[in-house]
């Protein structure tokens, strides 16, 4: 019984290690494909990146705006309930700088992008694979990494970085409005408190985290879309695997950033 459990754990670890190695090879091949990008395809490459930014960033703005504003209000109400807003203090600024700007902004943005665009990427590529579209493209001299994967990686990385900034901005606006409405702290005081707690480094880290999260989401969802199997029943499984791996990646990288920067 115990031996079975240990054997099962061993098999799981072996499978996980193999998957990490395969994804690492996939990342390497994708990076090499960037170096060999055909000069004739530059115009289309820029168009594909623009389309990806449109789907991932621009079309997500209304949803993200509502969520970010509500989160800002929620954080202020929680802070008030904890007694952090009695009289002016630096506490509210610190709460926003640490909880929202450094951590929640990129993290929540990534979760939204995984739900909207990660699923779309994995489903689209898995369907193309099942229908023989990727085979046909490949047979006609198109490298799937150059056509299907690279524009998505660049487009989603750019989108998550910019959306994270937008998310933080709206969270702060929502928080400032809630603070002045519920606790009598003026918007000016709220922003002064935030300025004291934040540095330019926080914004740079937000952008960097967003770019890393975005690239990881696109790589993992593309990988599972392209290599998740060739039967129609493999499509939903590819989507699930892409989403679960992307979530895991996002949380692991969040912890790694915290360890390196603040540990």
């Amino acid at each position, binding site marked *: 019984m115990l031996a079975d459990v240990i054997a099962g754990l061993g098999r799981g670890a072996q499978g996980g290690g193999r998957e990490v190695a395969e994804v690492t090879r996939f990342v390497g*091949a994708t990076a090499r494909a960037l170096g060999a990008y*055909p000069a*004739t395809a530059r115009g289309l490459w820029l168009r594909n990146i623009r389309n990806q930014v449109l789907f991932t960033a621009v079309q997500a703005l209304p949803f993200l705006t509502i969520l970010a504003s509500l989160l800002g209000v929620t954080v202020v109400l929680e802070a008030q309930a904890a007694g952090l807003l009695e009289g002016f203090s630096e506490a509210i600024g610190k709460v926003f700088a640490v909880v929202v700007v450094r951590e929640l902004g990129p993290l929540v943005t990534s979760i939204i992008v995984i739900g909207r665009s990660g699923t779309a990427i994995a489903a689209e590529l898995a*369907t193309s694979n099942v229908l023989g579209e990727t085979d046909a493209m490949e047979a*006609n001299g198109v490298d799937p990494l150059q*056509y299907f994967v690279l524009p998505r990686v660049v487009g989603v990385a750019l989108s998550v970085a910019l959306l994270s900034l937008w998310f933080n901005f709206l969270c702060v606006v929502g928080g400032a409005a809630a603070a002045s409405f519920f606790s009598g702290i003026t918007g000016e005081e709220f922003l002064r408190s935030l300025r004291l707690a934040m540095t330019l480094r926080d914004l740079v880290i937000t952008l960097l985290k967003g770019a890393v999260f975005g690239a990881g989401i696109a790589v993992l969802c593309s990988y599972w879309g392209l290599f998740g199997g060739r039967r129609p029943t493999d499509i939903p499984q590819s989507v699930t695997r892409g989403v679960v791996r992307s979530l895991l990646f996002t949380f692991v990288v969040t912890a790694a950033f915290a360890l390196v920067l603040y540990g």
Partner: protein
Amino acid sequence: MNDVAVSLDAVLPPVAYADWSRPLDLAVPAGGLGLVEATAQRAADIVRLVAGVHAPRAGVVRVLGEVPPVGDRRGVQAFRRRLGVALLPGGLTSNLSLRMNVIVPLVYGGLADAGEAARRADAALAACEVAHVGALRPADVSLDLRQRAALARAVAREPELLLLEEPFGSIDQDDVPALLETCRRAAGTVLVVTHTEDHVLRRHAGWHVEWENEQVQEFTGAFRVR
């Protein structure tokens, strides 16, 4: 010029199955139009082995004087620049218009810049009588038009070897001779692989071979087969 465009020497398919258990030898002469008739699985395997999409389990495939490269992505791309391929089930990318389905492989294969690719795509779509629906996506047109677009995509590459799998299954038989002529003009060698007995194709092919139950039932022309 090499007098053999494609050779399969003692080749076994990637996955074993009853219909193809013995090693296959086949030499396809360069130039002209040849027809291979076989069961659907064997036809699909032959065309994918020649295109380098699959590697054989045993034996050697040579295409235009080289073994289709595996693994080396640049080598694969360089090899496939020499081919035009239309595979079943058409394989048109569903989120691109028919016209973009022709343009994308030209620019991503490094065969033409955007302007030249557009010119070649328009000419190929017109030759395959599908230019009038070039702006539509595959799901918005009939199977007949999709098959013509897949043919246009292969023809636009002006390849040394045009490799077609069941290319006219949904197309009116009266239109086949004109499309075959378009293929012949575009490519040095045309190899059509089909799993149905097609008398129009046989009439226009320089040679043909028919397999059934692992036996050559009928062949014509100057090529080697076992």
